[in-house]
Each structure stands twice: as structure tokens, then as C-alpha cells.
């Protein structure tokens, strides 16, 4: 995730580092905690790249950062560009299932079921967060919804995997382990 761009966007008004971190966490429902060191490292890189500049100090003497013109253009570019899909080959779960199907000693159904239980428990956790008011403000709610939709999609995909595995097992007459392509004869 581009912490850099999110922090830049939050500098629509001058802020100091600690405030920026608090703002980020509040807006994203504290789903991705940042340490303040990360924030200052990012800010100094942004300053080096000419995207932010020191903007004086506030009443309590804290150094404020503000966007440069280049920084404003960078923020606009970020919002104008769709986020790239993450690389599917880095998806550990997909790799694990693909390999599980190929390794005869592995009970693939059990792998699917265990993953589904774990993801359902995560989903129940999001639900508890939502019920305790974590998603009541709009930005926090949208982030929580995103996590719910992602977990839901994973469980649906696992259901789908299970159903394909069962079909494959039913259609294979040989007493061999399930083949990855159930439809192939």
C-alpha cells in the first residue's frame, strides 16, 4: 500500500508528523498502524523529492510540513489513477492449494476447510469490530467493509475450490488422487 501517497494526500493542510500519523490511523479505522518513525522517514524522503516542504512551526513549536506544487500534482495523479492489481503469483493461499492438489499425501479438503474456518473467524472479528462501533464513521466504515468483502470473497473462492475438487473426485474412476483439472477426461 502506498503510505507515501496517503500521507501526501492528508497534507492538504500543513501538519506535523505526529498529527499526520494520527490522521492516517483515524481515517483508515486504525487497520494499518503506522509508527511515527515511519512517518518521519517518509516525510524526509518526500522532502528530498521536492513533494513536501517545511512550512514553519505551529504555536507549540512543532515543525509543519506542507505540499509543494509538485506534491499537489502527485496527489492528483494518485487519485486519477486506478490502483494496480497485486501480483497473483504472490498469493500464498492460491500457491498452497495448487501445490496441495499436486501432492498425493495432502488432504486438500482439510486444507480448504481449515482455511475457511480461519477466514470465517477473521470475518467474525470484523463483524465484532463493526458492532462495537469501529465502522460508524464513514472512512473507517469503508475500510472495514473492504476487509469484510475481501474475506467474503476468499470464503466463496474456497467453497468453489471445494466444489470443483468434489466434482473432480466424483468424475475420476481411477483410485488416484484428485487431478487439478477436473473437467479433463
Amino acid at each position, binding site marked *: 500500500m502506498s503510505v507515501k501517497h496517503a500521507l501526501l494526500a492528508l497534507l492538504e493542510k500543513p501538519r506535523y508528523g505526529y498529527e499526520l500519523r494520527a490522521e492516517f490511523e483515524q481515517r483508515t479505522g486504525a487497520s494499518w498502524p503506522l509508527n511515527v518513525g515511519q512517518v518521519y522517514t517518509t516525510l524526509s524522503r518526500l522532502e528530498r523529492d521536492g513533494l513536501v516542504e517545511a512550512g514553519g512551526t505551529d504555536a507549540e513549536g512543532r515543525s509543519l510540513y506542507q505540499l509543494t506544487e509538485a506534491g499537489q500534482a502527485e496527489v492528483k495523479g494518485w487519485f486519477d489513477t486506478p490502483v494496480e492489481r497485486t501480483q497473483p503469483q504472490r498469493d500464498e493461499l492460491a500457491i498452497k492449494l495448487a501445490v496441495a492438489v499436486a501432492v498425493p499425501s495432502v488432504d486438500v479438503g482439510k486444507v480448504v*476447510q481449515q482455511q475457511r*474456518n*480461519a477466514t*470465517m*473467524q477473521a*470475518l*467474525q472479528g470484523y*463483524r465484532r469490530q463493526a458492532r462495537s462501533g469501529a465502522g460508524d464513521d464513514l472512512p473507517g466504515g469503508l475500510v472495514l467493509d473492504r476487509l469484510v468483502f475481501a*474475506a467474503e470473497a476468499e470464503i*466463496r473462492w474456497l467453497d468453489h475450490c471445494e466444489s470443483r475438487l468434489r466434482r473432480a473426485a466424483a468424475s475420476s474412476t481411477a483410485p488416484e488422487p484428485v487431478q487439478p483439472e477436473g473437467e479433463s477426461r
Partner: protein
Amino acid sequence: MSEPVLRLTDVSRVHGTGAAEVHALRGVSLAAYAGELVAIMGPSGSGKSSLLTIAGGLDSPTSGSVEVAGQDLDEAGISGRAKLRRTSVGYVFQDFNLIPALTAAENVALPLELDGAGRRAAQKAARAALDEVGLDGFADRFPDEMSGGQRQRIAIARAIVGDRRLILADEPTGALDTETGEDILRLIRARCDAGAAGVLVTHEPRYASWADRVIYVRDGLVVDEAGETPDAALAEEVEA
């Protein structure tokens, strides 16, 4: 821990005989306690709806036993089961199952009137139940004049009226959009938090996540369970 509101013990259900024999359930045991919502998930034909109709006494198991509120459904007989359905069990179905010629309040009052309650008392309880599901002001409307979400709310009011201890919901969100479905689950959950036991059949993970426990059914068998066990839930209560 107290007795469960619903207890299924080694329940099997076989339809047909001989070559045409279909095993809808093959020895399912399950309990739902007061204050608890249990979700049942599984693909089409896995037996999850059979499980619900048997739990509510709409169908009888081929073998095994079902207890609702401490009463064995087989021993209760036909009239005893009918009484239990009118007084202790509330159903919510995907297609609402409302009577179009009756108003919202009349639909909700019906089980009470069938059980012998006076018309006025039944209407009063029905209106209170409609208030509880956010339909105050809609009591005299007919189902056809209302949206899908509102119709499902009537069905929930009918399922909770008269203080039912067991709520059985079969894909209650199936005909609704996501936000409206969430509202319906919120109502079912609130009723369980208020002390009812709930069993929710769904194939949607997002709605199952409202439950304390999620049970997976495959080929008429419970294959696994995710979420808190009743014992874990109890331990939390003790700590709190």
C-alpha cells in the same frame, strides 16, 4: 450451562426407499443455546434446509431426536408440535411467506390468534413487534404495498411476536440487497442478544459472520465448526 433451546441428537432423514433412497441428513447432532446465533452453511443439497425444517417440527426425522425448549418433538405428537410451532418457534423464509390479503399487523397477529389469543391482545402484540423491527406506521399496509426489505421485517416481527425462544431463518436475505440483508441480520442478532436462540441457514459468508458459531454441512453431515464454542462463549460471560 443451561439446557439448550434446540437440541438435535443423531438426526437422520431419509426420503424415498430402495434405489430411490436419498439421505438428506446422516446423524446430525446440534445444540443452540439461549442468546446464541448459530449459522449453518453448505452447498445446495447439503441438507441444511432439511435440518431447519426438522428443527422446527415441520418435518420429522427418520431416526434421532429433536428437543425444543426441553420438549421432545416426537413425544409431543402432532398437536403438541403444532402448538410449539405457534408459541415457541419463529420462522423466517427467503420468500417472506406473508399472506397478501392480510395487513402487516394481521400477518404478525395470526400465530397468536391461531393459538387462541383475543383479537385485541393479538393486534397489540403485533404492533409492538412491528415497532421493534422498525415498521411503526406500517401496521395497516398490505405486503404488496411494501418493499422486499419491509416485507422481510414483517416476517421477522411474525417470527418474534409472543416472545418466541427459537428463531429459525432459512436464507432470510436471499431476496434482498446487501445493505437490507445486513439490516435483517441486525434484527435477528438483536433478538438473540435479548435471549432467543437463533439458527440461520445461509450460503453467504457475510451473514454467517453475525453468528457466534458457524457449522458446515456436507452431504447431510456436520463436517466442521468455526467460531466460538458455547463453552468459550460462557467463559467470556464469566470473565465479563
